């Protein structure tokens, strides 16, 4: 048994211990990501669509009439009623944008694209990538300003991390 054999055996032992630790650490954990993937591919329920479409239109009218205050409780209700629908999340992002709360808007958009990636797909009519790109830029500027004032704010750093994920989603991927 030479040096390469010994090093390899050590590497194998370490890798087996590492993967066993990883498996035992993650055993039994929920997998929300897989659920959301299944959700996107599930056929649309016509009853759900009819219910949500009327309310979404109402919210859009309120937003067009520059009335985000009245739209917000309706959207919150929609989010509670239809937690797997992306559109209410997008609308909530729009409400935050009207109030110039770019960070909150970006976080809502991130939730929306997790539920329905079509919002970032140029080949679908839902595409809103350009709007999200601007929101992400403004949100990151906001967070950087706040972080300069309080560099140890963990909540801000967490938000920045989520917005970076949205930024990467907007940039595109082969997967």
């Amino acid at each position: 048994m030479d040096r390469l054999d010994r090093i390899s055996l050590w590497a194998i032992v370490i890798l087996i211990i590492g993967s066993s630790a990883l498996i035992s650490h993650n055993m039994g954990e929920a997998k929300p990501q897989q659920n959301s993937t299944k959700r996107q591919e599930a056929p649309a329920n016509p009853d759900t669509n009819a219910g949500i479409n009327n309310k979404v239109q109402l919210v859009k009218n309120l937003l067009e009439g520059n009335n985000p205050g009245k739209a917000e409780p309706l959207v919150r209700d929609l989010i509670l009623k239809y937690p797997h629908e992306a559109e209410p999340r997008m609308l909530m992002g729009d409400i935050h944008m009207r109030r110039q709360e770019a960070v909150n808007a970006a976080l809502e958009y991130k939730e929306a694209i997790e539920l329905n990636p079509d919002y970032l797909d140029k080949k679908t009519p839902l595409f809103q990538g350009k709007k999200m790109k601007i929101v992400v830029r403004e949100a990151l500027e906001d967070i950087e300003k706040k972080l300069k004032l309080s560099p140890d704010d963990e909540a801000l750093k967490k938000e920045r991390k989520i917005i970076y994920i949205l930024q990467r989603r907007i940039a595109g991927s082969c997967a």
Partner: protein
Amino acid sequence: MLKFLLTGGFIGLAGVLLSYFGNPANTGFCVSCFLENISGSLGLHGNIRMQYIRPEIIGFVLGSFFISLARKEFRATAGSSPLLRFFIGILLIIGCAVFMGCPIKMLLRISAGDLTALVGLAGLCAGVFIGLKFLEGGFSLGKPIELPVGNAFLIPAMMFFLLALLLWEPAFVALSTKGAGAQHAPIALSLAAGLIAGWLARETGFCITGGIARLFLWGPREVKGCPKSTGLLLGIFSFFITALVASLLTGQFSAGWHGQPSSNDSHLWNFLGMLMVGFGSVLIKGCPFRQLVLAGQGDGDAGAAVLGMMTGASLVQNWGLGGNSAGTPYEGQVAVLLGICLLFIVGLIYRRRDMSLAPEFQSGLD
């Protein structure tokens, strides 16, 4: 020297231009992503956003096939542990998927300013280094033997079949209407780029891991002997420079750590994913791209690796092993650790401790 510069330059330029003309960002050429697309199109996985028969892959194989036929160098060889190569092919694609790109895409990402891909480069170099230690320690998969020429046509024939499916679009072939699978350059352009890349790579032996391996093998001599000894390195250098200039000219360059296409901040797993790719590529004598080119010239062992890569591409999608913008999934992390572990086991089992570099690995080193 010129042909090496031309090969690298062409692959770099075509890689950037294909993205410009419709392929996903920084994905003008990517063997792992494209094999995932093809396997999805054939119904081997159900991700509706990853289904397209990529003409680039067909072109790589057929470009190599036509030129080896023309040069009368088309020979059927195999018998160097093809099943093991099939298995390592699976691991190569898992490693690439965790990193979100094969070695070619890694260079395309770096040349487009994606600094996170540098971590992958470091991982690839580490993997190549480990693989070389095994080669120097007598690793051998056995010497291939010549077979009846009919064997050599299997993989090119499969590519002709895929091309027919792409052009014919029968009902059983799935083609994405949205997502990455729906983003593609015109078929003729992609096919032509693939054919020329396959032809040039067949002529020069272009291989990213091969270039890095030579640097480790010869050390400073590899550079001092320029241009006599540094063909592969020159090819990689020319690839990078051409892709960088093309990215800048087409407005696809954006330097930074954040917001890069096909990237995430799971740097450890990106490093380990590419380490697995480098390690495995050295053991089977070539990166995923090189395996396709070798399969085109009749190498049945490389053909087994290509089929393994196709299987790996399906597994990546079905088991959710690939990295995404949020990071590396837990399943991918376990797959990488176990994959590297298995490569070490393969390395140990297939070592002949009474010799150093096996004869099949010595060709092309002079």
